[in-house]
């Protein structure tokens, strides 16, 4: 059942509407496309494209923040207290 990728054959029971629904949900998560008017419908492939680049951006941010954290954590004494403090006082 998981081999049925083509949408014209509805053997898996996932309708086209559901997929469009999901695409819309995805679109609302993306900062780029979130504010676009409902009248101009963004194509599904555009949404997927933006999703890919957004994920790549997030990965890059994780990398960047990991590097900075690594530098900051190198100071053993001060870091410990500051760690707890920073997360408890947001």
């Amino acid at each position, binding site marked *: 059942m998981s081999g049925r*990728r083509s949408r014209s054959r509805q053997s*898996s*029971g996932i309708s086209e509407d559901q997929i469009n629904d*999901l695409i819309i949900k*995805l679109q609302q998560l993306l900062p780029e496309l979130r504010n676009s008017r409902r009248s101009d419908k963004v194509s599904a*492939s555009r949404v997927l494209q933006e999703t890919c680049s957004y994920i790549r951006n997030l990965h890059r941010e*994780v990398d960047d923040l*990991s590097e900075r*954290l690594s530098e900051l954590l190198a100071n*053993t004494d001060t870091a410990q207290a500051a760690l707890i403090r920073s997360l408890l006082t947001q």
Partner: protein
Amino acid sequence: MASADKPINTDVPEKDVFALHFLQSLSNLRRQNTFNSPEKTNDRVKKIKKAAYVSMARAAGGTSRLWSRALLRRAAKETNKVVRFSRRKKRVTWLRRRSNRRDPVEEEEKEAERLRNLVPGGGAMETSKLIEETAYYIKCLSMQVKVMQCLVDGLSPK
């Protein structure tokens, strides 16, 4: 799989759940002797990055989502730990390539393929499932980024 009437749930846990898991990972890391030596920077960065992804996967529900499962499996393979999973999904990407039809679905599928490479565990998912998992993955990723940003801000000298 008749899931037509079930609404797609994309609620992620609160930020503190992510923060807690990440802090736990970090404190475990700091207990290692080699962690605090100033020379091994690249090693440290890699470990922190891995801790970020693993703690994110755990905060998001561990083995209950496909992508978090794949993340944990990937991380466990690196450390040779044994992790239990309930089911293995077959890789289904090969079946798609056999079709030579040129229709609007094709361009979408191409993008979906790229997405599959980005989301962990994506290769074994059907397109609709992939989209759902992606939504959840994006939310968790941005949550994790927020947590790490808060940490960095808190640790930086004023």
